[in-house]
């Protein structure tokens, strides 16, 4: 097979001194799925940003179809048929799916009428089984649904090179399998597909070749037939071997930290997003809420945290009715929050690590002046306790990789001694090692006596860490399912009406 796109000796150093790509040379061939494997911060995203014109390398060349090209903007790459689907889909929230796709088509120099876009989207959606509704508003879609819009876009654009940055992050196991099929099919049509992932299993399943990156360098490229799990692990982590999080005793039956009684919550469009949900989280327990995204999890989470008020029903925290209490009152009672999105929801972008520790504490700590010295010390403690890779606590949080952001966030929320921890997709987009670390921190919080409520689309993860699991489907809670979990029963509840 012939090389469609070739990166030659790419070097990228960020202003904070992080060397994200160090002399990376990689070739992408037509008709193949090339896996790009590595843990968070290995430089995978940086590389595809360079290949798609989002980032200009300090040094290095990009060869497209045998000719050197220079991308000044992503649009230059788009016009050549190179498209990046970022890990967190960037679509226009206010547009319909068809309008958003139509806009991209126009930017790629292949504009067409809106009716035509809708018609073709429907066709592609049916043919590839993407379930994309051209008339849905983007802001109503879950991240998984947005990811599928991106796939539809790639197919509509007839892209020669599709760069998929962690496309499985927001997908359920079933959606993941169909994504693999879509990728295989795109490759069989002669396209080059670059599939970024940190899951070895996925890479082995979907890819023809697997390129492994570590600390900004390309460690090696292996053919599918020759790759073994152990070999890939060694390439990814050096001589590190991951372990399973330890389970502790204790569990249901203890005091109730959180209780929901027949809670009804309206969604963004006035429809019922949560229909009569009742559940409880006990001291020392990890409680999982499973389900496909968009079944009311976000609204339920926001109700627990205090960002959304239920129309009917009650929310009890340590036995106190907090149904109408704002987040501040709940945090005073010991609630820690790990929101769905790290930047913007959990952390304040563009500000330092110290600022990000301080802002979440300041209103609880009281006082008129801010004691920056003590927050600096606290930030340094958190950074060292959570092993956050940061050069200085004065660095902006944006300079951290996703995994390090999550460590920082967890540190801020957990090290204070929380009684209820509410976490939404806490391991989404993290590499295996960091995800495991996050999970064991949550389990540890529970073993110190907190009640931990985890929403996740990753059923395997929930089954590993939870003491009981509820399943959310179309606004209703099913369960609880108790240990030992019956995988089939839980999975069946996920698809139940």
């Amino acid at each position, binding site marked *: 097979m012939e090389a469609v796109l070739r990166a030659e000796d790419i070097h990228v150093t960020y202003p904070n001194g992080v060397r994200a790509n160090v002399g990376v040379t990689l070739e992408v061939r037509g008709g193949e799925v090339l896996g790009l494997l590595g843990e968070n911060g290995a430089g995978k995203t940086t590389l595809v940003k360079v290949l798609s014109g989002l980032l200009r390398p300090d040094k290095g060349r990009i060869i497209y179809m045998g000719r050197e090209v220079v991308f000044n903007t992503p649009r230059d790459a788009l016009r050549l048929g190179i498209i990046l689907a970022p890990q967190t889909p960037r679509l226009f929230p206010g547009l319909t799916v068809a309008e958003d796709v139509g806009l991209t088509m126009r930017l790629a120099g292949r504009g067409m009428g809106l009716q035509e876009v809708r018609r073709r989207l429907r066709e592609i959606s049916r043919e590839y089984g993407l379930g994309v509704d051209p008339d849905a508003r983007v802001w109503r879609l879950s991240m998984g649904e947005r990811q599928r819009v991106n796939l539809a876009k790639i197919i509509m654009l007839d892209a020669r090179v599709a760069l998929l940055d962690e496309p499985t992050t927001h997908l359920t196991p079933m959606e993941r399998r169909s994504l693999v099929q879509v990728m295989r099919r795109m490759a069989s049509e002669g396209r080059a597909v670059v599939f970024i992932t940190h899951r070895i299993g996925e890479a082995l399943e979907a890819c023809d070749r697997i390129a492994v990156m570590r600390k900004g360098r390309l460690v090696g490229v292996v053919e599918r037939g020759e790759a073994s799990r152990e070999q890939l692990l060694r390439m990814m982590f050096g001589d590190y071997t991951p372990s399973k999080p330890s389970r502790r005793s204790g569990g249901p039956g203890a005091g109730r930290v959180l209780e929901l009684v027949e809670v009804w919550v309206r969604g963004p469009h006035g429809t019922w997003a949560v229909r009569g949900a009742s559940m409880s989280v006990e001291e020392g327990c990890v409680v999982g809420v499973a389900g496909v995204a968009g079944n009311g999890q976000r609204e339920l989470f926001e109700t627990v945290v205090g960002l959304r008020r239920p129309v009917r029903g009650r929310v009890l925290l340590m036995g106190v009715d907090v149904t109408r209490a704002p987040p501040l009152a709940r945090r005073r009672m010991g609630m820690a929050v790990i929101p769905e999105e790290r930047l913007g929801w959990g952390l*304040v972008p563009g500000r330092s690590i110290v600022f990000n520790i301080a802002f979440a504490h*300041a209103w609880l700590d009281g*006082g008129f002046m801010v004691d920056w010295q003590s927050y600096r010390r606290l930030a340094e403690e958190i950074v060292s306790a959570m092993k956050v890779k940061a050069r200085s606590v004065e660095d902006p949080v944006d300079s951290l990789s996703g995994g390090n952001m999550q460590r920082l966030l967890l540190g801020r929320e957990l090290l204070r001694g929380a009684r209820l921890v509410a976490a939404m997709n806490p391991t989404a987009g993290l590499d295996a090692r960091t995800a495991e670390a996050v999970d064991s921190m949550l389990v540890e919080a529970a073993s110190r006596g907190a009640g931990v409520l985890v929403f996740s689309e990753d059923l395997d993860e929930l089954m590993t860490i939870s003491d009981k699991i509820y399943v959310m489907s179309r606004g209703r809670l099913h369960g609880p399912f108790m240990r030992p979990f019956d995988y089939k029963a839980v999975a069946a509840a996920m698809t139940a009406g």
Partner: protein
Amino acid sequence: MKASAALALLAGLVGIVVVAAMTPAGPAGLFSALATVYTRPDLLATAVLYAGPIAASAVGLAVAYRAGFLTIGSEGQVLLGALASMWVIGYSGLRLPPVLAVASALLLALVAGLLLGLVVGVLRAWLGVNETLSSLMLNYIVLAYANYLIAGPWRVGAFTETKSIPPSCSLAWPVVLACLLAMAVVLEVLVRRTRLGLAVEALGAAPRAAETYSLPSRRLYLYVSALQGATAGVGGALMLMGFQRVLTAMSVSPGYGYMGILVAWMALLSPLASLLASYFFSTLIVAGYILQSYRVPFNTVLVIQSIIVLAVLAYVMIGRRSRRP
């Protein structure tokens, strides 16, 4: 990327030269007028007086903009502040000794501006009304009210103008400077060192995170809108007692409040830096008055000010965005 940032400044300079070249005075005339201002102590002192309403508006706006509260109500608040001080001194019937009259004029201007600012804040916090639009509308309301007072109840003599405030109530430049410094220092400390400043910053940069981590966003909008209105109101008093002395239909809308908006952004939302930027702007105004004798329209000054702000902002933004992880 450094080069393109410098290019922004160069483009600004070229723009200014081109604009100046279109006036009878020419670029040389403009720069010599500026040179005159910067070499004459009396003109430098005058510039402090003119900086009063601009800087007072800017310091408060800087705080509001940090919270993402994009009000443009300073124009109306300056005007209302001026009306309030004029009432205390000229129309209240109180015969206060000068020091007390000045002090109560400042205080009432502050309160008037604060209340007007609070209207915008309440509308935003409780009804979700866009603060830019509501404050713009309020500006027109205050302007119309001022015109009514000047042409109607407050009118004296043949022209549509109010009484003139007595010389004993005029402010000397050190007093104006002291007022501005006090406000700027207080707000700078507020922004950098207090809990409120921290919350304001978080609210502006990530409203969702601020809400999740229990910052009282509604209350914060009220605080910043009140603060912002109060400083602009004081600006109105400084305008009246610093140099305006009389309110005429012509002088009610000189645009100092709007200049404060430009200044706040140019100072990158730092209250202290706003003082310097305002002073620079006000020297341009004084230079503009000198140039009027060359039949250069005064609005040229506004054009030049705007070009400067655009160039500075472009310079900063390009510098920031050149490389991002």
